[in-house]
């Protein structure tokens, strides 16, 4: 192996070890385990090819943006292959999440399900992936200011939706909820 290739090899391993765990967690939150691994494997290849493009001050959100892009491709491919739809029904970069177990906070999940896909993704990036607005902006390819405004509104809408769910107010009918949300009630 030449010194150039060895250098690239070392830089990739260092970067992948830095961002890889976040990439895998990101994918596992949004897809079934097998799909998540397939997506991260593809995202790691993209990371290798674009190693020189990784921003020094935003490597993790940049890598999550790549993972999100790979997830979207997987989702499109799944939609095309109707036979696989059931397998990846919970997979979405913009919509649903991995089904909660029976002991999960069902009112919260119902409230989340009434929000727009954009609101849900913003809240997940913030609360689950633990990203700051500036990092979310890198993942989504939009401005930090835009993220801050939209995130603030998404939090307000979640609080209102949760209040409605727990207060028994009318919410989105179950037919419009993701299938796993409608089925997994206590």
């Amino acid at each position, binding site marked *: 192996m030449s010194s150039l290739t060895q250098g*690239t090899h070392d830089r990739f391993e260092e970067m992948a070890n830095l961002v890889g765990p976040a990439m895998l967690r990101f994918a596992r939150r949004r897809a079934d385990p097998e799909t998540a691994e397939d997506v991260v494997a593809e995202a790691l290849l993209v990371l290798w090819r674009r190693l020189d493009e990784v921003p020094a001050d935003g490597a993790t959100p940049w890598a999550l943006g790549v993972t999100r892009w790979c997830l979207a491709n997987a989702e499109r491919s799944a939609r095309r292959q109707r036979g696989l739809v059931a397998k990846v029904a919970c997979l979405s970069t913009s919509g649903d999440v991995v089904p909660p177990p029976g002991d999960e906070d069902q009112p919260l999940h119902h409230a989340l399900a009434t929000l727009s896909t954009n609101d849900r993704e913003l809240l997940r990036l913030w609360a689950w992936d633990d990203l700051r607005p500036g990092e979310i902006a890198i993942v989504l390819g939009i401005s930090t200011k835009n993220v801050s405004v939209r995130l603030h509104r998404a939090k307000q809408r979640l609080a209102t939706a949760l209040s409605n769910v727990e207060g028994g107010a009318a919410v989105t009918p179950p037919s419009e909820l993701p299938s796993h949300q409608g089925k997994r009630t206590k």
Partner: protein
Amino acid sequence: MNKDVETRLRSADPLERDTPEQHDRDRRWLRARISAVATTSGLAVSRTAHRRTTLVAVAAAAAVLAGVGGAAIAGAFDSVKRQPAAEAPMEIAMAPDAPSMASCVPFSVETLAEMPVAFSGTVTEDDGKRVMIQVDRWYQGGDTDQVSLVAPDASMTSLDGMLDFEDGQRYLVTAGSGVVNYCGFSAVWSEQLANDFMMAFDAN
């Protein structure tokens, strides 16, 4: 959002219930995967670097042949820019909005690799003015679910060489400078061309 809602939202993270065994499994899988990519991708990267160097000459020749301004193919050599995530369809013109004297650059995987926009998808709508394509795979330059191809004003441009996009048909499409590239760089989906796209964009 009050603290209670925030706490509940954070607690709803599906990975909150991960066991130490799951963490170990993830760590092992990642370590193996990273090692596999680093070990097996060296050749591919060397090949890509060689290809980029070669393309400088190809692009320069194309610019001379086609004329630098307004040529459909010359647009293919724009720098690659990822489109921000969006729900609205990406809009691409099916032809330049003015007559063009573009010449075709012979098809090659190397030239294909320089296309800033590349995807495969199926035509879902065609109203004569606009062709809507449902994207099933992005190879380069976008992440929208749909692409809208805007038909040119027939009085302003030559339709020679353009693809006839048919409802229900699957295509492989490339574009540069917001215009579809033809000359074999966009065509009805075929296994051969799909393989070329995969090679060009190092896709799996």
